[in-house]
């Protein structure tokens, strides 16, 4: 849940990058970390296995500067994608203000994408949150791979985007689509926050 301090005029929001194993969640954060100036980011923490698979989470704090007079900070998290780690995935998802679903565009990973999306919805439900009200964007990662191995963005939309959410093709390894995705989810989260705050204080 967003932390809004009206006295100090600070907002802190939590964004979780979700998706099947090896879809590029950690790669997204690593790219963001490599591009953001030092004064706008904190230390990136990665709790990973010896084979560099996310074990618990990656964490990256970002300072987005002043938005509508509020110092805005985002905490980006990734979750482990393997089915085995569902218990810890649920923990990381708790309190998320927005979710980026990172899908693997390879045709052979379609089932994993579907399963992960269903898992996301189930875990959100377990936290008592209506998935329709949670800001979410989709990322079709690995669009740089050979055409015959992947589904196009249109095909990915058909297969996974039931709710017509904002979706972005990406090649996270080289950065394409990473910041577009992040900007979109940030805007969605802040828009939702202003709606909630406006409704609450109006």
């Amino acid at each position, binding site marked *: 849940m967003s932390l809004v301090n009206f006295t100090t005029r600070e907002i802190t929001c939590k964004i979780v990058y979700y998706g099947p*194993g090896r879809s590029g969640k950690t790669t997204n954060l690593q790219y963001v970390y490599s591009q953001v100036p030092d004064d706008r980011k904190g230390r990136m923490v990665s709790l990973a296995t*010896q084979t560099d698979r996310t074990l618990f989470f990656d964490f990256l704090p970002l300072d987005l500067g002043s938005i509508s007079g509020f110092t805005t900070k985002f905490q980006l998290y990734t979750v482990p994608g393997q*089915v*085995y780690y569902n*218990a810890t995935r649920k923990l990381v998802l708790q309190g998320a203000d927005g979710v980026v679903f990172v899908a693997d565009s390879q045709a052979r990973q379609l089932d994993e994408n579907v399963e992960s999306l269903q898992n996301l919805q189930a875990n959100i439900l377990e936290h008592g949150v209506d998935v329709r009200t949670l800001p979410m964007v989709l990322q079709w990662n690995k669009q740089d791979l050979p055409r015959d191995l992947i589904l196009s963005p249109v095909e990915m939309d058909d297969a996974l985007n039931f709710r017509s959410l904002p979706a972005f093709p990406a090649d996270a390894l080289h950065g394409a689509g990473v910041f577009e995705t992040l900007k979109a989810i940030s805007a969605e989260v802040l828009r939702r926050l202003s709606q909630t705050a406006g409704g609450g204080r109006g």
Partner: protein
Amino acid sequence: MTTTVVELWTEEPLVRYVGQASARLVVVMTPAGQVLAQHGFAKAVDLMGVAAIGAAIMASSGALATLVGEAAFGALFHAGLRHGIHLASCRTGRGPLIVLTVFGRETSIGLVEFFFDEFAAALHAAAPAERSRGPVLAENFEAELGHSLATLFGR
């Protein structure tokens, strides 16, 4: 309460440890949460959750240790009303391992810690030298995680 193992060399030390420490549940796992041996679990899904969370707690503690300038924390102890949880790592020829122990009021953290030290030494003595493994391929990682559960629960 059953004791089952994936790797045979863990069995004798584990059985002795469970008896001496009066542990109710024990999981021996790799830092990635892959289970090598267990005592007391009846369902694979319960064991999977506990192993994943136990490994995550150790990883988080390691990261916290780094942030405060410590080399590593040796062990963690959580005290509950009815149970305590002891979580600690140990070094073996097979590589570093994590042991999670759940115990009740019939024993104490002092006893668990004392016998854990003996258990860690026994594991170290019993472990075969780490076999030279190639890098774990990404597509095999998840299968490896699940393989030990299948072995432990006879699937």
